């Protein structure tokens, strides 16, 4: 059993998550090896060199270069971990947008607020409408600017729905304080920093339903800031997406001026 499984890591649902788990396992094997080595040495010493067993201490102690070998070993393993896993795989997360683009990803804006998440979908034109905090109101809680033609088919959702086996780019943002959008089964998270939109991407490989964690202290309701996410089969997603877009177009399209004049 791998160390991460032993410690209770939940199953992985994303294409890159296996690499994360693998790295966690490799590091833990290394830690276990070091710890077991140290501990065996430690217990041997405290028994063997207890003053009743060893009345006269040695001035020199260990003379071998064991510890230098150990240190060099540690450096080598750490170098392998960095060069073999950490650098390239992190670059794939944050420095790879051209290729991600080619995967034709779904895009969703994720907006955190005290204490919940709202999801902004671009609609069928795949373009997000402008937003402006001045426009935030009871019916428009993201402040979407409906004078922008790109906004007309935009819709919002209280739950994140994504199709399986297709890359997703989530643009993480916030209206108020710092939050963090953390999908544990997808092995991905990103801080939501006020004033910024930070993309994070992953590809779900299995359908699921899960809670999403807010992983940055954001106030008294932080522990209850539970997000919801569903990964569904592609056709199911498409039907949902289409119906949402259509109803958004219906409500958001500019009404003919005549109607406006009848209701002063």
């Amino acid at each position, binding site marked *: 059993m791998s160390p991460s499984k032993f*410690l*209770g890591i939940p199953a992985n649902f994303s294409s890159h998550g296996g690499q*994360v788990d693998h*790295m*966690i396992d490799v*590091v*833990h094997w290394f*830690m276990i090896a070091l*710890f077991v080595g*140290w*501990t065996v040495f430690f217990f041997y*010493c*405290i028994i063997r*060199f207890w*003053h009743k067993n*060893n*009345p*006269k*201490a*040695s*001035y*020199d*102690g*260990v003379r071998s270069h064991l*510890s230098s070998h*150990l*240190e060099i070993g540690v450096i080598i393993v750490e170098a392998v*971990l960095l060069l073999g896993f*950490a*650098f390239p795989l*992190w670059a794939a*997360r*944050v420095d790879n947008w051209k290729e991600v683009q080619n995967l034709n990803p779904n895009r969703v804006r994720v907006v955190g*607020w*005290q204490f919940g998440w709202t999801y902004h979908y671009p609609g069928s034109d795949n373009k997000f409408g402008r937003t402006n905090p*001045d426009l935030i109101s009871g019916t428009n809680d993201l402040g979407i600017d409906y004078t922008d033609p790109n906004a007309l088919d935009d819709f919002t959702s209280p739950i994140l729905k994504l199709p399986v086996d297709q890359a997703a780019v989530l643009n993480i943002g916030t*209206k*108020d*304080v*710092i939050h963090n959008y953390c999908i*544990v*089964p997808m092995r*991905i998270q990103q801080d939501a*920093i*006020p*004033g*910024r939109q930070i993309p994070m991407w992953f590809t779900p490989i299995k359908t*699921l*339903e*899960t*809670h*999403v*964690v807010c*992983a*940055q*202290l954001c*106030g008294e309701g*932080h*522990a*209850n800031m539970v997000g919801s996410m569903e990964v569904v089969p592609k056709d199911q997603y498409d039907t949902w997406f289409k119906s949402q877009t259509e109803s958004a177009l219906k409500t958001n399209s500019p009404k003919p001026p005549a109607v406006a004049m009848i209701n002063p």
Partner: protein
Amino acid sequence: MSSHSTSITEHNDHDDSHHDDHHHELGFIQKWIFSTDHKIIGLQYGITALSFLAFGFYLMMVMRWSIAYPHQPLPEWMSWVFTDGWKARWLQDGKVTGETYNMFGAMHGTIMVFLGIVPLGFGAFGNYVTPLQIGAPDMAFPRLNMASYWIYLLGGLVMCSSFFFEAGAAKSGWTNYSPLAGFADGQVVNQWLAGQTQWLVGLVLLITSSLLGSVNFITTIINLRVRGMTWMRMPFFVWSMLVTGFLLLLAFPPLEAAGIMQLMDRVAHSSFFMPSGLFTKSEGLADLSGGGSPLLFQHLFWFLGHPEVYVLLLPAFACVSEIIPANTRKPLWGYKSMVYSVLVLGFLSFVVWAHHMYMTGMGAAVSTFFQTTTVLISVPSVVIITSMLISLWGGSIRFTPPMIWACAFIPMFGIGGLTGLPLAFNLADLHLHDTYYVIGHFHYVVAPGILFGFFAGILHWYPKITGRFMSKTLNHLHFWPTLICMNLIFFPMLVQGMAGFHRRWYNGGDAYLSKAADSVNVFGNTVAQHIDLNILMSSGAWLMAFFQIFFIINLFTSWKFGKKVTSDNPWDATTLEWATPTPPGHGNFTKEPITYRGPYEYSRPDCDADFLPQWTEPKRSHTLDTAVVSQEAASSKA
């Protein structure tokens, strides 16, 4: 046990002594309260820091109740401390609310770090032991030293007094990130009475205190070393304090700046850390000038924050590395490489800070830099801990009370250090960042690690301070249960963290729990599997509180009733603090000692006794000394 064990107690001509004032009697207030004697100040620091630690521990016990039993009111045995008015304000139907938890959590962290561990390690041990170990009569600036203590106390009281004001204490984590911290307590009309503001004022005072202390330590160690105390004859303890001093000196100013800037954001409506366009439910569009950067605060905070963890750790290393040679009866193995390691550690600790910010949207280049430095810093840490371990080899180990704590320190700190390794990697942090794995990791370092080192230190130097030993029996009653409880508390945190439990949840994950048996909610089910560990950990924490009583009893009763020491050097140790009378008077040494050799000359083949103190004059038979003696004669500065 030959002539070495006698200290330098004969009285000496007055011209030789550094202080004339240590002859006339000082009044109680001058002697114990407004003292300029580094030893008294050290004790003041120690008692104050231990009290704050107890307070921080109590806050944590309340938090642990809320985590384990979020739906049950706080039981009487914990809540009796609160007045009715306080309960009405901060508890809801007797239960801890999210707001109250955040307040306790933020203050637990702040108190433990800034008011507990740092003052205990640097303020208490550093102050008491450092001048003695380098043979100095006092710190270089005794009045600065006194000022440092009083500013610290004032800072602590300012911070903690906020518990009694309407708005309560700070509640935005010990990290105090803007804009959360900027908004918190914004409704309070007089901002100077808001906990969030007082936290900043307190912090600025604490930093000022630390800066005064660090300047003092650095000057003392550089200038007041006694004749013969060359750099490489300084005990590792002194090296650690020197590096700690530099860390405080260089790392704290950015946070002081950040603290003042955040204070201005609160009281002068500046926007250093507040961006434009923030919209909160309660306030609507925030009325700010805006344009500030929340990430700037994080950078400034962690530029202090990471060196700070070494400020916590090095004094514990310092204590343990004195106790091990004295109780293994052999030199500290690899003294030189330990010294170089601690210097490298100190330097590298300034270039790793952003590993606390991996999830803020860091690109590949920056993260490559910080991952590399973070991994590099593990190397000197491994060198130090390995040297401590190897020091045991070939020893003749006496399991004295300080030694059992020092021994337990090694594997416990080992777990803490090793669990830091996965957190060094950005990729692994995609899963582990801000989970209980992190809480488990750093608590293994600070609680069964650093605190054990400090318990060891207290037991080790207590006979010098009081002339009496602490009780062995009480110590066993304290040690073993504490060791077990620590692991009961912190190991399950690693498990929960791996399962994805996140920190700062006042209800311990209750909100994420899937209650239905047929639930398909992946994370909800994971939480359901691991949530019961909360009860185990909390029980461990409360049980551990009980066993601390033995320590408190031991600490105070041994002062009067402990077994008396029969010599000024009761552990047959080699460093200069044992050359003083017991307890050392104002001015410390009755005759200025001379240092003839390195700090850990135990079990030398050319010597009958199993220790040869630094201050013992070389005899012809001390063949290993000769080279050093002639070198010393050549370079003696008179």
